[in-house]
């Protein structure tokens, strides 16, 4: 992707993210009905779930770029995979924080260790956080790129496990909203969720492209500094 196309893409995605998130959160606050059980606090769902799904998407993107690196080689895939993991970890922190706030108001506790869904997401988050330790403990070069790519690919295996855990486990208090026969919510709630999810994906994409541009500029400057030294 050329620099101008990437910058235009980031601008377009930023505008889309702003429009969709403003629309989505307005729908969530003023239009979507309150949940019969949880009341207004259920509206945390409209940011918590899209943030979590965006984190998963970023980790998938990182794995895809890692796969491309191992398959075809090339420095660009290493930087793209690294940036995607970076974004995934940021969205992972937001998932854990918004989830904890929701847990506190719904269950009366910030965290419940017996919930496999929560614990598996925490494991996934810690696994990808350790990616940075691996990356910065090795000298830059093809060896580090390959080791990081293998690590990013291994991590993606944890995503379906984390996603399916809630369906395989019994006696959970974490709600299951998306079932085989469709979403277990009203049409207006689902539409609001879809707008928020599209906005969050656009935000994730915009941040990814901005971060990638910054990292590429950093790398180019470092190379220039070495040539001029």
């Amino acid at each position, binding site marked *: 992707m050329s620099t101008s196309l990437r910058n235009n893409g980031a601008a377009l995605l930023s505008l889309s993210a702003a429009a969709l998130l403003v629309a989505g959160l307005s729908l969530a606050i003023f239009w979507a009905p309150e949940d019969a059980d949880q009341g207004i606090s259920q509206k945390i769902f409209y940011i918590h779930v899209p943030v979590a799904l965006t984190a998963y998407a970023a980790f998938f993107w990182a794995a895809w770029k890692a796969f491309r690196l191992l398959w075809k080689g090339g420095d660009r895939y290493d930087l793209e995979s690294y940036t995607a993991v970076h974004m995934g970890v940021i969205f992972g922190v937001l998932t854990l924080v918004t989830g904890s706030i929701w847990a*506190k108001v719904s269950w009366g506790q910030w965290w419940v260790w017996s919930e496999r869904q929560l614990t598996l997401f925490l494991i996934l988050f810690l696994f990808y956080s350790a990616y940075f330790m691996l990356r910065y403990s090795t000298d830059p070069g093809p060896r580090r790129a390959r080791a990081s790519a293998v690590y990013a690919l291994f991590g993606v295996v944890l995503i379906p496990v984390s996603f399916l855990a809630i369906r395989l486990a019994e006696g959970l208090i974490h709600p299951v909203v998306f079932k085989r026969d469709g979403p277990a919510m009203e049409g207006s709630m689902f539409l609001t969720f879809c707008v928020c999810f599209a906005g969050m994906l656009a935000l994730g994409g915009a941040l990814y492209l901005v971060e990638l541009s910054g990292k590429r500029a950093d790398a180019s*400057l470092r190379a220039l500094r070495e040539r*001029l030294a």
Partner: protein
Amino acid sequence: MSTGEKYLWAAYLVLFGAVLLYVVLISLKVGRLERELTTLAELAREREGRGG
């Protein structure tokens, strides 16, 4: 404001705060890159002046 509303706004503020923090960090990074670029441009001009 009910307890549920307080927690709801707290969650929304966390998201807004995170985006704002990211913008601040990126603007600091852009500032640093600009300073480094200026230094390197001066270095390149000095080299050219000396005929190197």
